[in-house]
């Protein structure tokens, strides 16, 4: 970790975006930024300058321009003189120059629908957040060379296909914002699955938290962007309570509310209020409201399943995914009884190989007193190779039958 890691992480999106806009080259922008960070180690002896972003922007821009010049004269095979560091005077001067804010453009480039959603997510986290390839590879359960190749391909496509470095035109806006949102959903799904792993990968969720906050700041009038940022905050607020002392998963209704991060819940509520004020509902806002309702137990002492079931009814209409169906059945099981929940679950077919389905079937069967069905479903769930935390949870539930 860089000595000034926090200052650099804070400055990164703005500086890299400004570099990319100026240079029209993501690789060059990233390299120049890394170089400037290395130079900062030497140039900032005890503390960062007043405006670290401005310092890094000037230093990186100069490196990039030098790199371009060197590339142009490389054929002459002359050894380059070592690059001089910015002098204190230069740094001081640079601090007065505002960095152009090109972050939204950079995000739209990295999230362009001409790239596959997985590639967009990896590229955005790499370029905007500065996540290293090895960390991304771990988060996406990929080998590092494969992740590197995915990112390299995405950058080549951007450069080769002529993806413009512009905020999209108004008529293209809905589709392009949707592409940004699915990118962030892919990124957060990876972070969420990491719950059980905690430790080194927990930082990945922190980056997605930061990124979703940045998007909400850059697109304050897009309710779904605000909704997704809220959702991430509600879910991350509960992260400290998601595992018990033995490393087993704890579902939200059973979590110790004292472990929840109250400030994140409050941030989520504020974002969701702002989204609601824009009066354009959407699936992320509904999901965020479901998360908010779970978090409401910290205030009321109980989970309001009636509201959660009603929200899943609405969500099932606009986003009839398997996850919606399963979660709706669980909520119905809580409000109208386990048999009603099982009936809602039976409405869908072909999900036998899907872990959340079997886990829900097992829990509902157990509550309905159908122990054989429950045991069979727990066995089926455990055969689907759940992550360690979930496996421990399912095994304990099976034993308690």
């Amino acid at each position, binding site marked *: 970790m860089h000595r000034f890691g926090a200052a650099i992480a804070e400055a990164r999106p703005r500086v890299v975006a400004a570099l990319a806009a100026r240079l029209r080259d993501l690789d060059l922008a990233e390299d120049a930024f890394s170089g400037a960070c290395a130079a900062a180690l030497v140039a900032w002896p005890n503390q960062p300058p007043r405006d670290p972003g401005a310092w890094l922007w000037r230093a990186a821009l100069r490196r990039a321009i030098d790199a371009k010049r060197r590339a142009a004269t490389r054929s002459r095979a002359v050894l380059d003189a070592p690059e001089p560091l910015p002098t204190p005077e230069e740094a001081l001067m640079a601090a007065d120059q505002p960095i152009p804010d090109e972050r939204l453009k950079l995000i739209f480039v990295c999230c362009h629908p*001409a790239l596959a959603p997985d590639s967009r997510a990896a590229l955005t986290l790499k370029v905007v957040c500065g996540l290293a390839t090895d960390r991304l590879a771990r988060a996406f359960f990929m080998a590092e060379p494969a992740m590197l190749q995915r990112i390299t391909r995405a950058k080549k496509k951007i450069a*080769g*296909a*002529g*993806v413009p470095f*512009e905020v999209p035109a108004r008529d*293209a806006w809905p589709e392009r914002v949707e592409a940004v949102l699915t990118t962030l959903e892919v990124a957060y799904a990876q972070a969420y699955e990491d719950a059980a792993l905690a430790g080194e990968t927990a930082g990945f969720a922190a980056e997605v938290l930061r990124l979703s906050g940045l998007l909400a700041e850059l697109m304050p009038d897009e309710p779904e962007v605000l909704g997704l940022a809220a959702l991430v905050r509600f879910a991350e607020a509960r992260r400290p309570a998601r595992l018990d002392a033995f490393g087993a998963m704890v579902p939200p209704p059973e979590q110790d509310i004292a472990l929840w991060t109250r400030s994140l819940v409050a941030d989520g509520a504020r974002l969701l209020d702002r989204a609601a004020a824009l009066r354009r509902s959407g699936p992320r806002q509904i999901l965020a409201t479901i998360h908010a309702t779970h978090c409401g137990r910290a205030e009321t002492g109980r989970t309001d399943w009636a509201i959660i079931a009603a929200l899943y009814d609405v969500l099932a209409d606009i986003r009839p995914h398997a996850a919606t169906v399963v979660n709706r059945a669980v909520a119905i099981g809580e409000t109208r009884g386990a048999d009603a929940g099982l009936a809602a679950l039976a409405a869908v077919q072909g999900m036998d190989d899907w872990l959340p389905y079997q886990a829900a079937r097992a829990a509902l069967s157990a509550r309905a007193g159908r122990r054989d069905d429950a045991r069979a479903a727990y066995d089926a769930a455990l055969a689907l190779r759940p992550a360690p935390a979930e496996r421990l949870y399912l095994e304990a539930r099976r034993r308690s039958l």
Partner: protein
Amino acid sequence: MQYMILIYEPEGCYDGDGGQAALQDIVARHMALAGELRAAGIQQEGAGLQGVETATTVVTGAGGKQTIHDGPFAETREHLGGYYVIDVPDLDAALAMARRVPVMEGGKVEVRPLIVH
């Protein structure tokens, strides 16, 4: 930037009742689009292709040995039916143009930048 717009349509999409009428309609819409693009200075060239049954393929194998095949290079359900070459500022403009290319249901329009020397 220059882009080639490649139009793929499902095999036999103009067969059967109403096929001819559908084809005439699509062709008329291509003519209108091409006229508009030429007037705007966007279109460089373009053409529709005759049916895939008229395609012949030259295959170069090991050692440069060449053989001639009846038919298109790949046996797929979609066939290249025509193309445009356009000159627009960037991919977004090319994609906006590609959306306007008339195709039958199941049609696919691929956008590829040209190599510029």
